[in-house]
């Protein structure tokens, strides 16, 4: 089917006043694309005009008006490829006619009409893109499993399983131990889960277990762990096993760094590394070998929970660690669950208990992995002391007492007890005095150094996510069985905490509950619902052949031209989501449903063989090349051309907010949106400079440990690639300063115009690109 082009130019929102739209029609006609001008395209009449064209066979449509971020519900035409030209945001609103007036009769032919030049370029860019893209076709798995695997049979896992089962999905819970319940089954009482949040309630776990057992869609496998998860969402092949045995489908582990080098510290070559890797994982099948007896699942919910931290070592010596009567909160809970609170050392009644929330090692940090939950646990356990003994006294010495949101009600109520004493303070020592302990603290709210005689001391051990000890998910992915870079999240299973809760760095695997951050039972149950919905969304998206998130509904997926692949493995290694598994030779095996469509592989590929139907090396490259770069031959004082490749996720909305505020941006800049800076292939930058553009800059998310990149690694990888392009520029005798990368957050709309204009000024000061005109 041949593609028929159509250009629709909107005159609304100030475009008509600022830009000569008839001239745009002329530009379009250079490309033999018929163009129509309308006063307001988003009106019913405007849409009808486009539909008329579609009915006449137009299927590749350039809508020249507002950004694709707005009116996307109005401009929807089935079976058509759309290109939305943000003429309003990129030209009419940001390049003012007051500063750059229209050409008048007095002006000669060398008059530079900056506004019109920009508008003309954007028409050319749109048509160049439309020529190079195809209508996407979804990737549909030959067969799809809609079953959900839940790892962990605690409150979170059970809640997630129930939620998913109730909406009609078959669920299997795997539980490492012999029984459902998790930590919740070991408690005497639990924190409240609803209004008025004021008192302890009996554990809800027994009821939850009954509910799971009554649900016909749920299968429970106790004494079971995941040996490996292979494949991709919609067709995960999962091998389950008894935790005590070793099997051939245990997941292979990557070589530890220490084994990758010889005795001189030099890294082995690839062949030797492969040999060592095989030796290291002897007896285990490769990640690409599918378990013929594996069970198929569509998505996975990771609810493996936490373990109490172990408090030991010299750093905690001053807290009396080692004494039988100095216990952790978890040990205290065990004692409380058994009956009255008694001392471990001699079984005598423990009526005076001091709860220590912070180790006070010269700063005010709490114990590792401690937080609001451990604060509330201290309040809860203080109440146990009071329940058991009328003359019981419970002291809580804290650096931080955190009871967020409505749990403030719980704090207030626990505080009301006459025998519960709270103070901020630094614990200086815990010493044995006869049969009891003396807890000393300074800088307390009581204004002096205090001593408390205690029968028992309870330390607020934090809740360590189990992913700190073990991958748990055991993914048969080339990038390794565990989530990558979890170190920056303190080993919590997470990817981008603020924007995408539940989502891990692996598509189709959703974390919930305490493996994600420490939570109360109430929070865990709510979290479980979120993860269950996410798993359902994943299965449904895979079923329709579209991306789950963050590009929800995106039908495209990376396409590889394998004949030209040099097996450099860069795509496999750089994919932030481990979507590619290469074989022994290094040829990548794509797993499209693992993919999030960021295009990082496309940006990485030195052979430029990776692309998407509507977004590829050629489509962006052609847009770059379609920008007209005027030279001294055209004008006495030729304007410069500077290319901006900007991220669609945060930089684009930020720029458009700036446009709404009519912030002025230098008219010498041409903007091209990209899916992620990670998808930027350096060839585009080289193309731009080769055709005489004077500067190029990337505008994307913050990277580093506190990254804001929606695709985790994109902006960071772009930064690495940009540093390398600098050498290439230097060899061409071009100033490396002509190329730059800027970080912008979504709320930086007030700073971005200044950043851009400053860069333009710098480039102008450097003078024109010497390659101009060649």
């Amino acid at each position, binding site marked *: 089917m041949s593609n028929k082009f159509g250009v629709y130019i909107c005159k609304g929102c100030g475009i008509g006043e600022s830009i000569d739209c008839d001239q745009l029609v002329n530009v379009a006609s250079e490309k033999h694309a018929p163009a129509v001008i309308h006063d307001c395209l988003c009106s019913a009449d405007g849409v009808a005009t486009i539909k008329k064209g579609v009915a006449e066979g137009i299927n590749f449509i350039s809508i020249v008006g507002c950004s694709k971020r707005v009116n996307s519900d109005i401009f929807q035409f089935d079976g058509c490829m759309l290109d939305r030209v943000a003429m309003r945001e990129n030209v009419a609103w940001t390049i003012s006619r007051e500063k750059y007036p229209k050409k008048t009769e007095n002006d000669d032919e060398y008059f530079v009409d900056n506004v019109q030049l920009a508008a003309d370029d954007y028409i050319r860019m749109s048509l160049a893109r439309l020529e190079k893209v195809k209508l996407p076709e979804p990737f549909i798995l030959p067969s799809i499993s809609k079953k959900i695997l839940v790892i962990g049979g605690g409150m979170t896992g059970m809640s997630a399983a129930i939620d998913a089962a109730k909406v009609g999905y078959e669920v299997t819970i795997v539980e490492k131990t012999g029984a459902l319940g998790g930590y919740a089954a070991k408690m005497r009482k639990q924190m409240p889960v609803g209004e008025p949040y004021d008192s302890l309630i009996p554990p809800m776990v027994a009821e939850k277990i009954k509910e799971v057992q009554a649900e016909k869609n749920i299968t429970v496998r106790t004494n079971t762990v995941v040996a490996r998860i292979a494949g991709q969402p919609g067709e995960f092949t999962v091998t389950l096993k008894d935790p005590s045995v070793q099997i051939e489908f245990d997941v292979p582990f990557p070589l530890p760094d220490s084994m990758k080098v010889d005795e001189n510290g030099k890294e082995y070559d690839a062949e030797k590394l492969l040999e060592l890797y095989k030796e290291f994982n002897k007896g285990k099948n490769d990640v690409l070998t599918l378990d013929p007896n594996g069970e198929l699942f569509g998505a996975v919910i990771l609810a493996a929970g936490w373990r109490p931290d172990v408090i030991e070592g010299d750093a905690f010596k001053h807290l009396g660690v080692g004494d039988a009567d100095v216990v952790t909160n978890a040990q205290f809970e065990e004692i409380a669950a058994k009956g009255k609170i008694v001392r471990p050392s001699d079984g005598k009644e423990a009526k005076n208990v001091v709860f220590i929330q912070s180790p006070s090692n010269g700063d005010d940090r709490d114990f590792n992995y401690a937080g609001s939950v451990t604060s509330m646990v201290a309040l809860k356990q203080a109440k146990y002391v009071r329940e058991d003994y009328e003359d019981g006294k419970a002291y809580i010495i804290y650096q931080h007492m955190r009871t967020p949101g409505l749990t403030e009600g719980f704090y207030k109520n626990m505080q009301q007890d*006459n025998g519960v*004493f709270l103070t*901020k303070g630094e614990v200086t020592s815990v010493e044995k005095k006869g049969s009891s302990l003396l807890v000393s603290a300074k800088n307390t709210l*009581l204004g002096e150094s205090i001593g408390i005689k205690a029968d028992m001391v309870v330390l607020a051990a934090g809740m360590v996510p189990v992913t700190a000890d073990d991958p748990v998910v055991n993914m048969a992915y080339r990038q390794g069985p565990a989530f990558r870079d979890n170190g920056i999240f303190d080993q919590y299973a997470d990817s981008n905490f603020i924007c995408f809760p539940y989502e891990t760095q692996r598509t189709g695997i959703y974390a919930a509950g305490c493996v994600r951050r420490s939570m109360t039972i109430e929070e865990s149950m709510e979290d479980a619902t979120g993860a269950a919905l996410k798993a359902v969304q994943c299965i449904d998206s895979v079923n329709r052949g579209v991306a789950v998130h963050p590009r929800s509904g995106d039908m495209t997926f990376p396409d590889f031209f394998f004949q030209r692949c040099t097996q450099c493995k860069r795509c496999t290694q750089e994919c932030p989501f481990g979507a590619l598994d290469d074989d022994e030779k290094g040829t990548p095996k794509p797993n499209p449903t693992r993919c999030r469509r960021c295009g990082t592989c496309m940006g990485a590929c030195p052979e430029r063989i990776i692309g998407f139907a509507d977004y590829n090396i050629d489509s962006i490259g052609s847009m770059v090349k379609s920008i007209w770069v005027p030279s001294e031959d055209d004008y006495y004082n030729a304007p410069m051309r500077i290319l901006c490749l900007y991220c669609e996720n945060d930089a684009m909305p930020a720029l458009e907010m700036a446009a709404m505020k009519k912030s002025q941006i230098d008219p010498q800049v041409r903007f091209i949106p990209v899916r992620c800076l990670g998808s930027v292939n350096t060839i585009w930058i080289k193309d731009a400079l080769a055709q005489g553009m004077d500067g190029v800059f990337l505008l994307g998310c913050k990277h580093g440990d506190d990254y804001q990149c929606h695709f985790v690694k994109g902006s960071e990888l772009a930064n690495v690639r940009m540093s390398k392009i600098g050498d290439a520029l230097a060899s061409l005798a071009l100033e490396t300063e002509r190329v730059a990368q800027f970080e912008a957050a979504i709320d930086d709309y007030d700073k971005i115009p200044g950043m851009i204009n400053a860069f333009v000024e710098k480039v102008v000061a450097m003078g024109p690109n010497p390659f101009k005109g060649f």
Partner: protein
Amino acid sequence: MSNQYIIQPDLNFIDEVVGLGGDTLKKCFQCATCSVACPIAPENSPFPRKEMIAASWGLKDKLVGSADIWLCHECGDCTALCPRGAKPGATLSAIRSYAISEYSGSVPVIGKLAKMVTDPKKLALLTAIPAAWLALMAFITMFMGGTMEKIFHVIGLHWYHVTEAPIAQARFISTWLVDMTFVPVFNISLLIFAYTLYKMISDMHANAVAEGKTSKETLDYKEYFKTIPVVLKKVLKHTQFNECGENKNRGTAHMMVLFGFIGCLIVTTIGFFFLYALGKPGPYSQWWPFKWLGNISGIAIVFGAILMIKERLSKSDLSAYKDWYLLGLVLILGATGLLTQMARLAGMEFATYAIYYIHLIAVFHLFAYLPFSKLAHSVYRLAAMTYAEYANRK
């Protein structure tokens, strides 16, 4: 650690303070808004934040002997601004009440009264004692005609306490018997104060030394007593009350009652002089200037009491039994005093004696229970303010 303070919470103490009107004290979360809000808290170690945590931890020893709890005039600024509704003002008031009971309760034998005075269930008993005694006195006066005069005649004294006036209080209960009741009672109260003040002042000093709130190392009683006039001037001027932001009117009302009592004290002293030195018993003519003073004082007491009751009623959750007991007593004292006179002038014999009987019961409450009730604040607060002034508490 040498200066370590060993925590020994007293759960009973918390319960008692809660019962005395400090029921909100456990709500405190130590933000110290109260200490910032308080217009009279000193800059060094201000109150009442530290008192709030000491109270919620049951640290009786830090509070009972502290002068700071008495520096508070319960103006209510802290209570109004407290974000948690912990009512520091009411809590301090409850602690003071506890302190009064603690000190007066330590007096041998009679100390038992301390608990009774703060217990509403004991009010009937505490009223029945003077009622019975005064009824006996009335019986003696009215039916055993001139008993005291006869006794005095035996020892050669020719004192008359009854005038020619047809209605006179002395015809109902002999002035002799009244004075023989109240002069000893009042003096016993003074002795109790002397006893408890000695303890309290040394406690205050010890507490101030321990918490670094004093410029003095040892307590010099001579210097201490020399400070009293300076403080008295402040008390009479109500300097502290006037710094209050929340309940400005209380200062005026309190001043009316205080000056009313002082006026009555002066009038009573003059009456004593007339009776015993000049042999001139009452009732006296309404034209006499000291009668004017007496009437004005009575009116001041009544109005002051009504004002304070009105204000407390508008904030009904602010007040405990101890507050209502004192205010009720003051109102009854003033009102019955004035009404007795009015009934007498109106020639209503029965009403005169009946009201007078109530008045005397009230006076008994005032004198006998003074060291045990909230009214003791007049003495303890003066002592504490004097200490603060003496110790340069700033």
